[in-house]
């Protein structure tokens, strides 16, 4: 067990490629989808790292590799100093108990044939030490209450709940084993803002009480800002900027981060016609065939020749106090979120 503020997770040069094949009978590899392509970061005990970025940039893939649900192509994920990619048997089981996930899709991530009680109690099947048989029902009911669901609904099936209610079932399951790290992949995007606030308060309360560390993946930038100590921005399999929440939101240095922040809708209709936005042109390039040099260059308004030739590394740049991966990084004031 790590103690407060101590490093609990260390990710080094993580790569996950999915083979791209052709032919039905005799599959021939014709390339690879570079979903995660060289990502490094640390996470301390009790800390929250927010991860944001374009749809399809590799956030969920990163989460799955952290959870050892997918094997990395290369690179390492160390939890308390042990590489989860190299663990097996009893050690892998113990390490898995320590890192749990709350999933993105409340429609497909819950088994439709199981009751809510079975779904939430499922982790106890493998980890019987957490909830002995006789205590199981009470534990599950406690978890239901904790996430704002009616404990009497323990025998219902997922289809009897709305999308938002199903998301809360997933959160209860992620909490069941009281892990040290929880990877939350879009945990609140299907919820109304009041339940979203309850869930965020709940996550923060549990963090304080249990010293949990969170990886918090979401598209809602004001939610990410609220909950995160640090924020990482991803684009096409790479991390393009990482820093304290105020650095990223108030002094973004990478053009992609600036575009992202300017697109955040403001919850106030006044003056909506005048709002300035950087609307990104075109679509993200295919992760099977990313641009040379800087991956953002096909959509970047600042791109120069060097951007096609040399990959900008994630490092501290002149005039900024946090790391960004742009040859021409400079801080830029954008509309404030929230």
């Amino acid at each position, binding site marked *: 067990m790590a103690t407060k503020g101590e490093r609990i997770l260390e990710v080094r040069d993580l790569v996950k490629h999915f083979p791209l094949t052709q032919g039905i009978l005799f599959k021939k590899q014709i390339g690879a989808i570079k979903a995660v392509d060289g990502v490094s970061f640390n996470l301390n005990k009790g800390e929250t790292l927010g991860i944001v970025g374009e749809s399809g940039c590799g956030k969920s893939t990163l989460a799955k590799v952290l959870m050892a649900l997918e094997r990395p192509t290369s690179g390492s994920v160390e939890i308390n100093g042990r590489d989860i990619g190299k663990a097996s048997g009893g050690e892998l089981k113990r390490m898995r108990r320590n890192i749990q996930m709350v999933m993105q899709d409340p429609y497909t991530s819950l088994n439709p044939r199981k009751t809510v009680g079975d779904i939430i109690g499922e982790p106890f099947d493998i980890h019987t030490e957490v909830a002995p048989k006789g205590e199981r029902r009470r534990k599950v009911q406690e978890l239901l209450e904790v996430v704002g669901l009616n404990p009497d609904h323990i025998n219902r099936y997922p289809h009897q709940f709305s999308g938002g*209610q199903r998301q809360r079932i997933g959160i209860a399951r992620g909490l069941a084993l009281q892990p040290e790290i929880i990877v939350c992949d879009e945990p609140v995007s*299907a919820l109304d803002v*009041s339940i979203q606030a309850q869930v965020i308060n709940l996550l923060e309360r549990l963090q304080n009480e249990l010293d949990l560390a969170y990886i918090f993946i979401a598209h809602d930038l*004001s939610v990410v800002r609220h909950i995160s100590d640090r924020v990482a921005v991803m684009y096409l399999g790479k991390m393009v900027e990482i820093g304290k929440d105020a650095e990223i939101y108030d002094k973004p240095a990478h053009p992609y981060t600036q575009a992202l922040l300017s*697109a955040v*809708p403001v919850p106030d209709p006044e003056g909506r016609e005048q709002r300035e936005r950087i*609307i990104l042109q075109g679509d993200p390039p295919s992760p099977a065939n990313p641009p040379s040099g800087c991956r953002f260059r096909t959509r970047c308004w600042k791109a120069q020749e060097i951007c096609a030739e040399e990959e900008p590394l994630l490092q501290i740049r002149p005039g900024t106090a946090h790391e960004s991966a742009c040859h021409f990084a400079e801080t830029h004031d954008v509309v404030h979120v929230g």
Partner: protein
Amino acid sequence: MRKASTDVLPAEGGLGNEPLLAVEDLHVEFATRAGIVRAVNGVSYSLSPGETLAVLGESGSGKSVTAQAIMGILDMPPARIPKGEIRFRGTDLLKLSDEARTQVRGQRIAMVFQDALSALNPVFTVGWQISEMFRVHRGMSKRDAVNKAVELMDKVRIPAARQRVNDYPHQFSGGMRQRIMIAMSIALDPEVLIADEPTTALDVTVQAQIMELLAELQRESNMGMILITHDLGVVADVADKIAVMYGGRIVENAPVHDIYKTPAHPYTKGLLESIPRVDLKGQELYAIKGLPPNLLDMPTGCAFHPRCPYRQDNCVTDNPPLYEISGTRSSACHYWREVLDGDQG
């Protein structure tokens, strides 16, 4: 079940005083082993051509079920519509024969689903899926239908549409797949588009592109849009008017500017106060206390009373009607004046 009683399709052309779409006192219930789930308990809202109505509200408050009732895609049973009207150009869709209903569904009223990413069929090319709309509903030849599909993919800005028409859904990014879903839904020039959380799974830059695309399509064809979403930022950006749902009914109706400035129902007020703001960082967020209502056993009186900071004794017994505040605003709260003034309880 009520008997279908008419085959007459809703008229085209002028509307007179009738809105394009009017839902009136709609009730939907589900038979379950545990009892009757009253998911929709008297929903009324209306939509004019070119207008955007945003439907907000609690998770599980019946937003999607209402939309499914309008589309006529509820499984009945277990669902049942004991009461209510859904008038499209003056014709009650609930009284149409199944055949006439099919003519309306997908063609004149179309929907983009909440879980669009899984709504595309993985084993058919996107071009085939879009062109099927034209073959089935417009009797086009295969060749013409594919050309129309390419045209639509262009319209929703899929780059190199002609080359990509034979690609499969998994070869597109989430944002592009959502645009393909939108292409399918607008293929037959619907008069009403229901978009159920069309951008929830997408990042804000793609979201901005898609909302702009929808607004443009609306300007071109004067289509009315019902936008179901939890994102109060998106609503503030695009909505003309707002309906807020709680416990299966509408609790507040208002033009977009009014509701953000001066909500008239305690639930709406609670929602707005729950939005995370920069200056609240490090503090607990405001959240409405208590649990959402149990639809099997709704609270007496006002359904919001167990959670309401404005509650008075009569709230526990008297279910508030939708009080008219002005020509364009209404609130289902006995104490809407106090809420408007901001006096707490």
